[in-house]
């Protein structure tokens, strides 16, 4: 029983990581339809932000807290720059966007290598996050995973509220659902696109901050997670936050439960098979968005 509970906790926390890395993508890929291969590098930028900030702010706890908004801004601005310089010109050509952003991703990786060196780097975690909460001797919930879970849920909440209740959110939805009609209604679609891209990329930066608590920071850390992020968004249903949330937690739990009784590789295969089977059943993903632009 203890084992199942602790595995469920691990699963939920893997889900939270998946959710964080996929959340930004569900905006840029899900809502806008841009296949941005450099999304992983925005995650990397967020992670390196923590590394750089720790050189300035020596207290590990404060540097982590400060890093959250700073990483959001850094990754977000990189996103806006990418949107403004390249993607804006390629909205009607998804395949070209894929190739171009992949190229950008390679350039950003090499840039990180040149700036920070080829070897991976580490950050110090605050002491309050390296500990755990003991429920029984066998069942402990580690603080860093609880922190990531909270962060993921807060990010979802903030994004949902923004999309649903702010005028920016209304405009974003309007542009997604019918760009031409939004434009003739007086919505500056170009500016809305840029803002959406800013928020989506910024969330990738926040995910990067979270990942520093679990593993090393390196030029290729983005590529390692980008596939998972796309999986979550595709299986969740393009354009649906709700779908991404459910799929992220479902995949995390599936992964951890299968892995417990088998091995890492088998669990990975299991997850992929489950997704393929699922997409056979529901090719549009968990939820289908009825829009005119993506149909």
């Amino acid at each position, binding site marked *: 029983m*203890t*084992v199942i509970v*602790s*595995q469920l906790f*691990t699963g939920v*926390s*893997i889900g939270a*990581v998946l959710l964080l890395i996929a959340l930004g993508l569900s905006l840029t890929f899900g809502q806008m339809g841009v296949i941005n291969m450099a999304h992983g590098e925005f995650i990397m930028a967020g992670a390196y932000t923590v590394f750089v900030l720790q050189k300035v702010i020596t207290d590990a706890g404060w540097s982590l807290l400060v890093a959250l908004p700073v990483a959001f801004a850094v990754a977000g601005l990189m996103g806006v720059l990418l949107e403004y310089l390249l993607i804006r010109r390629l909205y009607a050509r998804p*395949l*070209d966007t894929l*190739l171009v952003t992949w190229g950008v991703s390679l350039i950003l990786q090499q840039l990180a290598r040149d700036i920070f060196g*080829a*070897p*991976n*780097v*580490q950050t*110090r*975690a605050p002491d309050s*996050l*390296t*500990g*755990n909460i*003991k429920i029984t001797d*066998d069942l*402990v919930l*580690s*603080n*860093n*995973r609880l922190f990531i879970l909270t962060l993921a849920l807060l990010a979802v909440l903030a994004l949902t509220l923004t999309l649903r209740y702010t005028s920016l959110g209304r405009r974003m939805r309007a542009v997604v659902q019918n760009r031409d009609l939004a434009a003739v209604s007086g919505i500056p679609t170009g500016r809305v696109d840029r803002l959406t891209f800013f928020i989506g990329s910024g969330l990738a930066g926040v995910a990067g901050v979270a*990942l520093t*608590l*679990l*593993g*090393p920071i*390196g030029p*290729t*850390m983005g590529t*390692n997670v980008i596939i998972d992020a796309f999986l979550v968004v595709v299986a969740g249903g393009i354009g649906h936050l709700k779908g991404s949330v459910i799929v992220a937690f479902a995949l995390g739990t599936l*992964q*951890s439960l299968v*892995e*417990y009784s088998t*091995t*890492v*590789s088998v*669990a990975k295969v299991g997850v992929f098979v489950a997704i393929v089977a699922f997409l056979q059943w529901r090719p549009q993903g968990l939820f289908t968005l009825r829009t005119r632009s993506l149909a």
Partner: protein
Amino acid sequence: MLDFRGRWKAALLPLAAVVALSACGSKTGENESSTGAVADTSGDTVKVGLLNSLSGTMAISEVTVRDSIRLAVDEINAAGGVLGKKIEPISEDGASDWPTFAEKAEKLIREDKVAAVFGCWTSASRKAVKPVFEENKALLFYPVQYEGLEQSPYIFYTGATTNQQIVPGLDYLKAQGKTSVYLVGSDYVFPRTANKIIKAYAQANGMTVLGEDYAPLGSTEFGTIVNKVKASKASAVFNTLNGDSNVAFFKEYKSAGLTAASMPVVSVSIAEEEVKSIGTQYLDGQLTAWNYYQTTPGAANEKFVKAYKAKYGQDKPTSDPMEAAYVSVYLWKAMVEKAQSFDVAAVRSASDGVTFEAPEGLVTIDGATQHIYKTARIGKVGSDGLITEVWNSGQPVKPDPYLKGYPWATGLS
């Protein structure tokens, strides 16, 4: 949307051209290498090759090995060289890519006509260059601990084989009464072979292996593996993870509430350099199995550490593979001087019994296996990031790459 096909083709065309070109390139290379190469030692200097990854994922470790080889070369040159000739090192970048290693080895042997090559780190790179050295009858000095079960006439192995590192590590655990172990490793040849040996040892020595898990190289998600380790209630963990996975593993290990006191981890791929990058807060008190630590006592080590820090910086630690690489250059020099020749066949036949007062203590070449006698040492990571010895084998252990001297190991090779 209709022109997708055409675009794909356009994008694939240059790719296809590159593939075709590189295929031609490798073919001509094969044709040239039908005869053995002869080292050119006619000049005032003798060339040696340094073959290490100076870029890519392995660079963090291999650059330090290159640096210690350079240190040895400089010291030897300052003392007059080998057989009156100064050593001229030629450094090549293997770029953490195994075919590149083979290509650069070929270049060092055939174009530069070096007398010997020092380098390689991963077993994959060693396996990639092995046929090149055998075909050209050239010499490679390999300085890293490895999984054993190999013995090439053209390779000298100056790192530990399994009976000088893994077996003593297990002996130590057994002596401490830690008789149930959990095996965690990266998913490639070294950890899998090592764990095969550990399981055979356990069966013969009354130890139980409670579980075995492999994570893909570079994996950073260890939640489930650590849960499994914890639930197994093993008395110790034997860790053959390589590279950055160790960072994620030890972070998870600590936050799950496991400590060196409750369940110690014995690692075989974590040396001083890695301790620094993983973070001492996660490794305090954990165990390692090697043949050398920066803290190993003795005048030879004091000199080595001092010279290394003077050349490369006071904050740079020295580690086992670095020491083995440093030693390999001196051993080559001693062999050449004994043979009075740079000729590969002469050097090889002079190898048996050649000794060197190394930083790790006296090392002797075993001519039959071309490995060296090394003292096994178990160390404990201190809060200062250095590793201090808690046990050693007392005397250098005879290398036994195929574990022929261990009845339980029959059938492994």
